[in-house]
């Protein structure tokens, strides 16, 4: 089966600084890829490239075998979405926020909107203004808003970075279900090595823009090949 993403010789720079330097990376359909690493490792920038929000300075980024230029076609862009660390909700009701992606696509499937709202435990808050939600509720609304458009690829950028254990558990459960039931490909960027271990099929360690190690999750945690991976998993400072 064609990989969802193929990255070849990808480099991304901000001025003189190279923030992503990935000679080769393939992301398979239906997998959950965990990307761990310290702050400033280029994990979020990698996700922005995968969501076609930025175009790499160098190299080839392919989505389902099609090379993506500086302006990704709208249909492909709408196949992928991101939930960021901050929920970034609009100043309207929770339900209107969840509906947003459908509205942008000119679609209207209210039963799906309601199902997503209920699934994330937001039914009683659906008509409340989004600004009144707690951080955990807001992030659940952000996940509902992403799932309602049925993306083929769900990119998660530290989605539970600000959440309590209950909300973290709920989000992980739903991401896991979405992956199992719909075969949604998930790329999860996280500081939380335990979260990647709980969710990911494969895990990568990213440091200074480079992928130091990428392996099956079990192997990555039990038998890290690179000394840096072992040090990172022990909680040591790696740069």
């Amino acid at each position, binding site marked *: 089966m064609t990989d969802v993403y193929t990255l070849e010789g990808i480099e991304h720079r901000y001025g003189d600084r190279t923030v992503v330097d990935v000679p080769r990376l393939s992301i398979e359909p239906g997998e959950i890829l965990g990307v761990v690493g310290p702050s400033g490792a280029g994990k979020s920038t990698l996700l922005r490239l995968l*969501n076609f*929000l930025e175009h790499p300075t160098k190299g080839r980024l392919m989505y389902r075998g099609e090379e993506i230029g500086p302006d990704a076609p*709208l249909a492909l*862009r*709408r196949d*992928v*979405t*991101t939930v*960021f660390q*901050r929920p*970034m909700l*609009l*100043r309207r009701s929770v339900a209107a926020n969840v509906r*947003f*992606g459908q509205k*942008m*696509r000119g679609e209207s499937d209210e039963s799906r909107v309601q199902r997503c709202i209920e699934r994330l435990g937001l039914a009683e808050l659906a008509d409340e*203004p989004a600004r009144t939600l707690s951080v955990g509720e807001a992030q659940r609304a952000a996940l509902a*808003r*992403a799932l309602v*458009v049925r993306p083929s690829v769900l*990119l998660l950028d530290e989605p539970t970075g600000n959440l309590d254990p209950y909300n973290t558990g709920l989000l992980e459960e739903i991401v896991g279900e979405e992956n199992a039931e719909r075969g949604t490909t998930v790329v999860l960027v996280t500081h939380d090595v335990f979260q990647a271990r709980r969710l990911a099929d494969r895990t990568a360690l990213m440091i200074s823009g480079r992928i130091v190690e990428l392996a099956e999750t079990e192997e990555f945690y039990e038998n890290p090949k690179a000394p840096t991976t072992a040090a990172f998993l022990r909680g040591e400072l790696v740069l």
Partner: protein
Amino acid sequence: MDTLARALVDAFGLLLALDPELVEVVARTLQVTIGALFVALVVGIPIGAAIGLTRDLPGRAILIPVIYTGMGLPPVVVGLFTYLLLSNQGPLGGLGWLFTPTGMVVAQTIIALPLVVGLTMTAVQSIDPDLPVQMRALGATRMQIAMTTLLESRAGVTAAVVAAYGAIISEVGAVMLVGGNIEGETRVLTTAIVLETRKGNFALALALGIILLGIAFLTNFAFHRLQVRQGGP
């Protein structure tokens, strides 16, 4: 105090009697104000939104101070400029707009446009810069992002409308020069106040002033209700 009291009585008298001359002046005032406000909003909001959203716009460092300067343009200078533009010898003299309400709308639009552009730009810029990124990640097109950002900054955009409206309805210098304060044709409340004051009809001038303030208050009250309904201040 006596003059003020008489003015109040006169104002109510004029209003209750629906004095045709007064009705005509009020109608002309509203016609010019709404016309100029409409053009300034239709042109200014998209320009302000575009500048606010395009943070890497070339020439931005010059453009923004130019807009800010425009926000404080002396109306009488705008009047003079429009007068020269529309006069027989001017480049737009052939249009025959000098001493007409259309000419007054042109002058008022020039005064209001930088206010609308500048305040819309500021309102749009005050939106979290990550929000458009999130919208794009959810599949929004550039136009959809611009429209949603404008909706998000609606309280600020309403402030732009209020400021432009206030500048237009209270303006006197430019409309006096361009309109000529011709009775039955280009006389508006502000120019009528100047005329009546010069004639020594202080009571009537004050009455007209009270009516002008009343119209301004009622409109701003409506704008404020709109802001509150939208979750603004």
